[in-house]
């Protein structure tokens, strides 16, 4: 592949980078035990990014016979963009020459579609139970090869697996309630091992939610489970630490490097190097090595997330966080973002007179400009005098980035657990994971009825 791409590095420009990818994959969807969709295919794509006289041009194709058109289009776009006195640049980084091969324990290509369907049907059977109106399973696997080369001499090839499985159950009583579980990352077919138990758990939760109560919307002391803790780390802090938002002046953390915004207990990390997690990668899409960095250390803003472009503008080094699909302009993204563990056991965390324990996430969003966030929780329990008393449903928490971390007064001592997700930003979708240990936050807004 490098031979095919190399010649387009000879165009006259200040900087050229070429990315290409090939992948082969399968996906199977089961709905209520029926094979709904089963799709197999091969994808390939390439893109060229060029910087000339301080302006960027980008072009992409999924037809590798059009590489010349792609390279020339990128050059043309860079020339057209030289308006408004552009001053784009990139930070100086080491140009790596490397080949990384991540092997799955069980190569998905070694398992027939027939076996995959049969294994999924077995999992589906575990999801069937009284009051479950429908359930679905969605499985996908792929083996991808990514190629990165640039005019500074970088040549990187990465071969990696990616497999995910999602289970969703809907229970019907007086209303409909649903719950879901997932598993996945840089794995092969082994992702399916032991997922049956998780899928069954999704059905049990959906049924339990039928008899759960709504809570009155108000401020409560809240213990947050690891799935939502991860969302808090990703949505509320991670996005606000993305340096492109800093440059846009659209984050409340602009100008707050070194400032204390949380309690001493709060350490939030973005780490793309943790083996096999869904947000893990060896090199980002600018050829910079993946890294571990503290976004918040002992409550203090410690690091922003950078691409080479944002690092150049803010006079620092890239943190290896520039990511994008092959046909997308790479932008600043997170990897695996989480709260580091503390020293409290669960009983300590529940030391609340009247509050709420929430777990399981249902999506969330942050407005980095205003510093507001909101996350949905799959379920919760009322805490009364340190005991979990009543199950709750349709919950959300909302707050302000600059206020909430100060209200964290205990963090669980259990090992952080991670949950796969896809992060949407500027119309792009990127695999990430989020997680952490349980945390206790005093007096935040809980949405209910």
């Amino acid at each position, binding site marked *: 592949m490098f031979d095919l791409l190399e010649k387009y590095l000879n165009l006259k420009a200040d900087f050229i980078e070429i990315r290409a990818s090939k992948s082969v994959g399968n996906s199977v969807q089961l709905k209520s035990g029926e094979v709904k969709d089963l*799709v197999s295919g091969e994808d390939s794509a390439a893109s060229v990014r060029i910087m000339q006289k301080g302006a960027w041009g980008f072009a*992409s194709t999924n037809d590798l016979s059009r590489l010349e058109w792609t390279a020339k289009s990128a050059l043309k776009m860079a020339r057209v963009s030289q308006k408004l006195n552009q001053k784009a640049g990139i930070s100086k980084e080491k140009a790596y020459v490397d080949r990384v091969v991540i092997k799955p324990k069980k190569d998905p290509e070694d398992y027939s579609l027939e076996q995959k369907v049969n294994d999924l049907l077995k999992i589906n059977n575990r999801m069937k139970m009284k009051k479950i109106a429908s359930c679905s399973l969605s499985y996908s696997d792929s083996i991808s090869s990514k190629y990165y080369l640039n005019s500074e001499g970088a040549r990187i090839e990465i071969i990696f697996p990616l497999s995910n499985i999602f289970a969703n159950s809907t229970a019907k009583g007086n209303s409909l309630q649903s719950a879901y579980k997932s598993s996945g990352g840089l794995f092969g077919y082994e992702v399916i091992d032991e997922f049956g138990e998780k899928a069954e758990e999704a059905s049990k939760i959906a049924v339990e939610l039928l008899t759960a109560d709504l809570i009155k919307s108000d401020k409560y002391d809240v213990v947050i489970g690891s799935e939502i803790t991860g969302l808090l780390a990703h949505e509320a802090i991670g996005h606000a630490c993305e340096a492109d938002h800093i440059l846009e*002046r659209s984050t409340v953390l602009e100008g707050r490097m070194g400032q204390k915004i949380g309690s001493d207990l709060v350490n939030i990390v973005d780490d793309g190097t943790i083996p096999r997690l869904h947000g893990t990668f060896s090199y980002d899409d600018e050829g910079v090595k993946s890294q571990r960095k503290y976004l918040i250390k002992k409550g203090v803003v410690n690091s922003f997330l950078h691409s080479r472009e944002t690092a150049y503008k803010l006079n620092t080094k890239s943190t290896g966080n520039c990511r994008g699909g092959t046909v997308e302009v790479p932008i600043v993204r997170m990897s695996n973002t989480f709260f580091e563990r503390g020293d409290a056991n669960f009983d300590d965390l529940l030391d609340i007179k009247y509050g709420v324990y929430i777990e399981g996430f249902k999506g969330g969003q*942050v407005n980095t400009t205003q510093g*507001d966030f*909101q996350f949905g929780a799959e379920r919760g329990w009322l805490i009364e005098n340190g005991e979990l008393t009543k199950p709750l449903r349709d919950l959300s928490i909302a707050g302000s980035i600059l206020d909430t971390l100060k209200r964290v007064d205990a963090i669980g001592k259990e090992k952080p657990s991670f949950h796969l997700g896809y992060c949407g930003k500027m119309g792009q979708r990127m695999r990430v994971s989020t997680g952490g240990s349980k945390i206790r936050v005093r007096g935040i807004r809980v949405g209910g009825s």
Partner: protein
Amino acid sequence: MCGGSELEDLEELVKKAAMKADQAEIFYLVKTSTSFRGIADKINFSRSSFSKGYALRVIKDGKMGVSYFYNPSEFDRALNTAIYASRFAEKLGIQFPLKKAFTEVKGVYDKKLLKKDENELSDCIVQMIDTVKRKGAMPIRCGAGRNESFFCMLNSEGGEFKSKRTGFSAHSTARFKDTAQTSDKSSHSFFNPVELAEKSADLALAFAEGKPTSGEFDIVIPPTLVANFLRLEPFASFSGEKAFRKDSYFSGKKGKKVADDQLNVYDDPTIPNGMGSVKCDDEGVAANRKALIRNGILNILLYNLETARRAKTKTTGSGFRNSVSHPLGSGPTNLVITSKNITHLDDFKGIMVNSLIAMQNLNQRNGNFSCSIASGAFFNGEIGKPIKGCSLVGNFFDILKNVSLADDEQVYHKYYGPSWTFRGKIV
């Protein structure tokens, strides 16, 4: 963009597939796009892209198998995969449609847009940035881009269609003090994106420095927010398949009251220039205007060939593809909302909720939601004191039953209707 020889090649591929299967269908899509994006007061990047792909469906022994490919040289592998995959499908007895003539909807292809060169498109960015600054707000990001697509479907039963589209879209996000506001628009033809820059700046200025409030109020939400609600619900719930699988609020509610007595919701693919307008769906089934909700009663749900067979009903011509590599789904085209229950905005007193965050937290199945208000204000015929730091809580399906439409009919992407007003709770 797509020459006759490529179509002849497609015919050959369909014939080849039909020799191994009982029926075969190929959907072909080719798309080019050019776009520019600004961040703060600079052009951040410019982009050109070309993509094409083929979706293949075969029916063998009454079962459907699916695959896709990007290059005709990969066809044999894709065909074998699709035939193999059909073994695991349910025997539904689907038949691909026969030959039928369709009349293209007016205004979905505009040659003049394609004459706009890269310089003119990049000028849009410069003008949007200048406009936001002139208004006294801060440009955060903006973008403008055009695209052209050609797509066609051929099947072994003679069914076929060809269609081409142009699209132009732009967006502007402006900030004033603690508030950022976005304005966006899409069309098949060029429009002046400066109007979006002006609007985003005006909104940022109007909603800055809001304060929390709480209580029960008459609420008005603009079409931009209505459309966002409808992307979640009932868009998903109008899915006939979801209802059939009892995974939707609308399950078992056909013929029953689900909305205000005066409310009508139409799926209308025939609107000239409409962003969702099509002459037929991606399976080659004619697309017609249909009432989804008539006088508050759920009238019809949306099906493609496959989901209709499962639900033992007929397709509504609602089978659409997001890409060639994803399975064909079903959904509405343009959503038109009308009602005789009208509120005059000039006389309206209450709260305007302009934007919410985390709307995906709306429970798709029971309609409950609690969403933080990103921008809003007291409203008394016009926007007054801004609010934020509070949440709108309620149930979307209860809103449907109590909604009154405002007298400000608008078009926003695929939504044709006015603002909504209803009694709501802010905490």
